[in-house]
């Protein structure tokens, strides 16, 4: 029988712990596919975050390290500076990257650290049971915003890509989504490019993946994907926010 679809080699056989309908599985797959496609598994080192993806170190077949909450870009900086031939990526959620780790995110970007960051934005703290995230939408009901996110008292969501695009440092900043086939294919291309940039020594690439969390949003997986389309993407528009090499080449 011909195999027309298989698991990427860069994923282990460990069963994933993610909830039904969670998009982390898709994003893990896209990262692993990029690693496979580029033939870099043997020299890749991944940095797992604190949050839902904390066990990513069990799922990726390359060398892996578990970082403290928000510190993955600093740990990645150390790994890359120690062994510049390694390909180093971080895989982080919104609480990790856009709240407790904001400084590490901004400064690794402004240094144009030659690393790849996969930023999964599902607008909620999943692992701890659904608290308000830096990216929770105005009015969004969470465990710690039971009356809806009140922008008068807790402020507005952070748009990471737009913020980082104002810096001179980073090479490539893009936002993608994985809520339908077209978007998944686009996400696959963006993630691969983010790794290629590092291989070619171009520097810091961050791919924000707008994601869903049916469990903590209190929705069915289908409704969650619809919510991504109707609520998330209008607030977090998809696209390339910075591509320095393309801009230089006048593309």
């Amino acid at each position, binding site marked *: 029988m011909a195999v027309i679809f298989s698991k990427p080699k860069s994923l282990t056989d460990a069963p994933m712990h993610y909830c039904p309908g969670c998009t982390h599985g898709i994003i893990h797959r896209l990262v692993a596919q990029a690693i496979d496609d580029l033939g870099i598994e043997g020299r890749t*080192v991944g940095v797992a975050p604190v949050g839902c993806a904390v066990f990513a170190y069990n799922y990726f077949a*390359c060398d*892996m390290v*578990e970082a*403290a909450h928000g*510190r993955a870009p*600093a740990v990645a900086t*150390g790994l890359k*500076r*120690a062994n510049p031939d390694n390909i180093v990526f971080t895989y982080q959620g919104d609480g990790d990257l856009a709240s407790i780790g904001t400084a590490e995110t901004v400064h690794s970007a402004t240094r144009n650290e030659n690393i790849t960051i996969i930023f999964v934005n599902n607008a909620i703290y999943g692992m701890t049971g659904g608290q308000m995230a830096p990216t929770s939408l105005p009015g969004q009901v969470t465990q710690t915003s039971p009356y809806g996110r009140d922008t008068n008292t807790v402020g507005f969501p952070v748009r990471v890509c737009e913020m980082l695009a104002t810096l001179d440092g980073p090479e490539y900043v893009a936002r993608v989504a994985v809520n339908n086939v077209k978007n998944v294919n686009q996400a696959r291309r963006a993630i691969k490019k983010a790794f290629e940039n590092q291989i070619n020594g171009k520097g810091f690439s961050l791919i924000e993946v707008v994601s869903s969390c049916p469990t903590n949003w209190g929705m069915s997986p289908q409704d969650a994907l619809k919510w991504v389309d109707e609520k998330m993407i209008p607030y977090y528009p998809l696209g390339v926010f910075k591509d320095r090499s393309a801009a230089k080449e006048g593309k």
Partner: protein
Amino acid sequence: MKGNEAIAEAAIRAGCRHYFGYPITPQTEVAAYMSKRMPKIGGTFLQAESEVAAINMVYGVSAAGKRVMTSSSSPGVSLKQEGISYLAGSDLPALIVNVQRGGPGLGGIQPSQSDYFQATKGGGHGDYHLIVLAPASVQEMADLTGLAFDLADKYRMPSMLLADGTMGQMMEPVELPDKEPEMIEKPWALTGTQMKREHNIVNSLYLDPEELERINFERYERYKKVAENETRYESYMMDDAEICIVAFGIAARVSKNAVNAARQKGVKAGLIRPITLWPFPEKPIAEAADKVKAFISVELSMGQMIEDVKLASSCKKPVYLCNRTGGMIPSFDQVLDAIMNAAGGDK
């Protein structure tokens, strides 16, 4: 050579090619020295965005299997505690230098030893220790820096050089090692599998309590070996001593002079100077407890090491505190008075 510069040069000679720091007085010479030297020898000097980021960059380099260090002073070392706990929990070697200043809070910029508890009892969250080395001269700033890297690698744990502002700023002649450092294999390091082995994982997360307990017990077995093999101290005039001073760093230098002066006045004083603060030299203090009349703990703090002196001596003899704090240093006269008072009962 300045003490802070001796640390930096000794680290380079020990094979450290990666330094991460954040500006804070009184240890800036370490960073300044590294920023000049590292680019010339193919190393990394990086001024991080924060102490928190710096220690996590250290974590990354250490996970990659290379020698790495950071340096700071008290308030900055407090910020590093999260990363230090993760280093300990992931069994990663690294050197953290604390050139202490007065506290708590922002405190002052003058010398202090008031981070003794933080350094020797763990400092961050969880069950762990650091190897803590306390230099008392510029020569020891250099020697103990090299030793700190060796011990950290050997026992797979972070080590700390616990100096103070005086040691950092003091200038003394120093002999630096000129032989190649011996590096040990690190098969656990994250260098990429090269598709030749299973993936390595560096991690401190264990959700199964039985597993976490087992790992903590194993780590403490290793700590026991460190205590057996690596405890270091200097014993001065202790053979016939009746008054035993316990002091480290700058306090030990002042105390040594006071011991000499007390002897001239006919009081048999001696000094035990811990060189490792963890593991603490319990044995010589326990032995002294059966011979001396009293101990004096001389410290630049409100009295922190004194607790370990009391424990090690099982409180068999009185333990007095002779201290200044907030950036002040006990004077020769103050220590001599403390010796004479402690000996006073017989006179």
